[in-house]
């Protein structure tokens, strides 16, 4: 898969504090890439660097194949929309004028798609009301609309659902899924609400202390965090045909280990094993969530440290 953003060994220091430590990352085209990390892990700094708001102390990155050291990076950024920390909207201007301003920033002269964008974020009826009088949720939606101006190829969204009510979160999710699905926009998104992120992301990177702990696809992650039972048996050869017959979803993890993903009682597993003539040594239930997975990763890192 083609990568739309490639980050190569980026480090960032503020004074003596090392905020990013040799970060490397590849963001596939068309993906929704979830950046997961605690406060101060370096998520925002990484996003600021990609959007050009901050310069890395060392390392480089490329967007759509154009290196950060290349002068053309400025024109590549025109195909990128972003919200960093909170929506940067001009509070003295109406929603329409904020979008028009962003179109002007992008060097565009046609403003025909503004009503469509306002409709998408449900701000069509705000009229002349200035953004300063908007609720937090409305400002957040306006920020998304600003980021979507000019049909960007890449969206960089730092905590876009912060401060939104449950309905606003659902709306935001639908908007992001729609632009990803219909316009094939690549989205780099960070959020504290991991459950929400898991409903969007196709890829994940876990970041802690300025270092990327792990990157993986949602399929890989789901296989690790979905509810399963790990059984250890005396042998797997004769047990697999029995599981196939019973249409049990399983995966062999070694000569004596099987992960079962079908919700099945332990007693049933033991009876099927008896039928196959194998001895069950142990059954362990794995019910890890994305949050739990992340916390375990961090704990492992801290344990190593």
């Amino acid at each position, binding site marked *: 898969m083609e990568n739309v953003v490639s980050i190569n060994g980026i480090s960032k220091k503020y004074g003596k504090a090392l905020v990013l430590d040799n970060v490397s990352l590849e963001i596939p085209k068309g993906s929704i890439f979830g950046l997961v990390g605690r406060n101060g892990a370096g998520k925002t700094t990484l996003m*600021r660097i990609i*959007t*050009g*708001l*901050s*310069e890395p102390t060392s390392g480089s990155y490329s967007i759509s194949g154009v290196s950060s050291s290349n002068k053309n*990076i*400025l*024109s*590549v*950024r*025109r195909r*990128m929309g*972003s919200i*960093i*920390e*909170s929506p*940067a*909207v*001009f*509070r*003295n*201007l109406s929603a329409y*004028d904020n979008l*028009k*301003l*962003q179109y*002007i*920033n*992008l*060097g565009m002269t046609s403003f025909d798609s503004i009503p469509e964008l306002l409709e998408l974020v449900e701000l069509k009826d705000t009229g002349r009301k200035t953004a300063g009088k908007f609720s937090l949720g409305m400002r957040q939606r306006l920020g998304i609309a*600003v980021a979507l101006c000019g049909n960007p190829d890449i969206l*960089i969204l730092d905590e876009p659902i912060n401060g939104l009510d449950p309905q606003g979160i659902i709306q935001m999710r639908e908007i992001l899924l729609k632009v990803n699905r219909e316009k094939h926009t690549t989205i780099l998104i960070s959020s504290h609400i991991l459950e929400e992120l898991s409903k969007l992301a196709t890829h994940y990177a876990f970041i802690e202390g300025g270092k990327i702990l792990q990157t993986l696809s949602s399929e890989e992650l789901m296989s690790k965090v979905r509810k399963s039972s790990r059984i250890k048996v005396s042998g797997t050869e004769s047990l697999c045909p029995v599981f196939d017959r019973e249409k049990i979803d399983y995966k062999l993890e070694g000569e004596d280990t099987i992960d079962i993903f079908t919700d099945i009682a332990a007693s049933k597993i033991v009876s099927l094993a008896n039928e196959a003539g194998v001895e069950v040594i142990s059954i362990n239930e794995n019910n890890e969530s994305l949050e739990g997975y992340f916390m375990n990763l961090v704990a492992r890192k801290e344990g190593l440290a």
Partner: protein
Amino acid sequence: MKCALNSAFFRFFRTKAFLLVLIISLIIGAGIIFDTCTYVISTSVFGRPRAIANDFLAYCIAKLAVVIPVAGAVFCTAFTGSDISYRSINNKISTGINKVHIYLADYIVTVIALVMSSVINLLMFYAFAKFVPQRSYIKINSMITGLVLKSFIICLAYVSLYLLFQYFISRKMLAIIMSLMLIPAVYMGTFLFEGILEEPYRKSVKNEQTEQVEWELNSKYVGGTTREVIDYVYKSSIFYVMDSEDFTCDNSYAVAGSVIALSSALGLVAVNKKEYT
């Protein structure tokens, strides 16, 4: 640069900044006319009140050079300060607009706002001087045009400093406080320099009957090149111009020009290095 300029002009006309400039200009103009009129008419010549003449215009223009920077500070905060504090400047940077272009566009729009404000005021002064019943002699001569240019370059120097403050400090309130303190600072500085430029010894009469005098040492006195530099800078101050009525003194051009060059260079370095959060 075109994108940055279009963006700045759009904000100028769509936000209240444009209206703010117009209102401030009218208030400033009316205030200066009233203040100068009171002074000119109250001073009598041969027992009769003085007529409105070219010196009225000269005083008005000199006062404009003192007051219009206040309007500049307010405008700069409303225009550039808000852009930085609302973080909408980030939208421009992340869409690939060069930071230097953003700075220059803000500079151009602020200068245009001040020029507009100044032109409104100058027209008000001229119209008042030309059409009041007591006029005697009003003619746009080289002294008046020179003073207009001088006031303009002084305002430009202030704008350069205000913009530097906004971009360098990037905290709206602190930047406007510093901006508004500049004019009193120049006023204080002018009179501080006056003390330094006094003669090395002051004569004071110790005993009037015996006419015994004593020479007191001026502790602030400096000589040589430092004195020449201070003297030059002192005479560039608009407060000196107004106080001495030396409306033809041209030192302002060089000093204001140096301030513009230095603050613009620092501003461009600041905007390039600074990361706006």
